[in-house]
């Protein structure tokens, strides 16, 4: 099959992550939980933000930096910093495809390999592949969707954001 051959030569896909397993709840100290719960937003725009955090937490700047470093190394936080509103710097859309089980792996690998795709999830639904495409403008995004459609051979459902209702300020992880 020509398409299958082309797939093999155009990219080397990363291995798929294993399926979701039973959650392993990490053991965190009260201070670590407070860091995670109370500082998902509101990191001070001051010369010494970590010292300011430490003051609120009755801790020290050194300790706050050490714990944030540790949480990052363990993968419990991806970073400390600004979260940008995605559409500010281009155009993006949420797209979905219904892919038969035996072709899901190949289709998913192709979608993931596209640099314009920043999120790609397999979901339990007949529309089982959900991904976000971001590019400079609407036309560029639609071009990528068309290419994915052509390459994979399945209709892509284009579900662009019409209106957001919530600024993501993070949410409480523990009550």
């Amino acid at each position, binding site marked *: 099959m020509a398409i299958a051959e082309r797939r093999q030569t155009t990219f080397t896909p990363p291995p798929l992550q294993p399926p979701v397993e039973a959650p392993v709840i990490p053991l965190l100290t009260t201070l670590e939980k407070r860091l995670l719960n109370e500082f998902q937003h509101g990191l001070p725009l001051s010369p010494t933000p970590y010292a300011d955090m430490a003051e609120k937490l009755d801790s020290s700047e050194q300790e706050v930096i050490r714990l944030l470093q540790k949480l990052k190394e363990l993968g419990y936080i991806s970073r400390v910093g600004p979260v940008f509103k995605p559409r500010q710097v281009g155009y993006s859309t949420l797209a979905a495809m219904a892919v038969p089980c035996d072709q899901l792996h190949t289709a998913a690998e192709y979608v993931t390999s596209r640099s314009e795709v*920043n999120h790609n999830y397999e979901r339990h639904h007949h529309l089982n592949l959900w991904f976000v495409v971001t590019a400079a403008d609407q036309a560029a995004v639609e071009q990528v969707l068309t290419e994915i459609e052509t390459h994979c051979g399945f209709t892509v459902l284009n579900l662009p954001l019409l209106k957001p209702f919530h600024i993501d300020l993070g949410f409480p992880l523990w009550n």
Partner: protein
Amino acid sequence: MSDSSLTSDNRATLDEIDRAIVRATQAGLPLVPEPYQQVADEVGISSQEVQSRMQCMLDQGCIRRIGAVPNHYTLGFRGNGMTVWDVPDEKVREYGKKIGDLDFVSHAYHRPRHLPEWSYNLFAMVHGKDRSEVDHKTAQIAELLGDDCQAHEVLCSSRILKKTGLRIV
């Protein structure tokens, strides 16, 4: 912040220095006592200017928040349910705001229907430790919508195939 500042048509304009700040901070602030000073040195401006420009981007909504970005998956929050709802179009705004205000909803969006295969016009991301917690929270949304919910589904993720942060310029 008013709703109008969040619409797609109302984009903040970023100049070259703002973009340099975005590039220098999108992978995270350095974990050093004076992180903005380090960003400033990289961009070639003063620390004060970095802070004031980031404050401006926050006010404009270009930066949603500054803080620790949790990785829900490794923290044990593996429910990650994308709930989708079919509500009357004239009420989507009202319900979107109500659902967006729930503390377990991280994002709520109005998206187009694609009839006949896709009848849902309101999306809400619900996070929980497992499927039953997501289902319980979804039931709370259903209760809030009452008879105005014509149909809904929960699409839980079975695999995260790709998740990368924003990359610009």
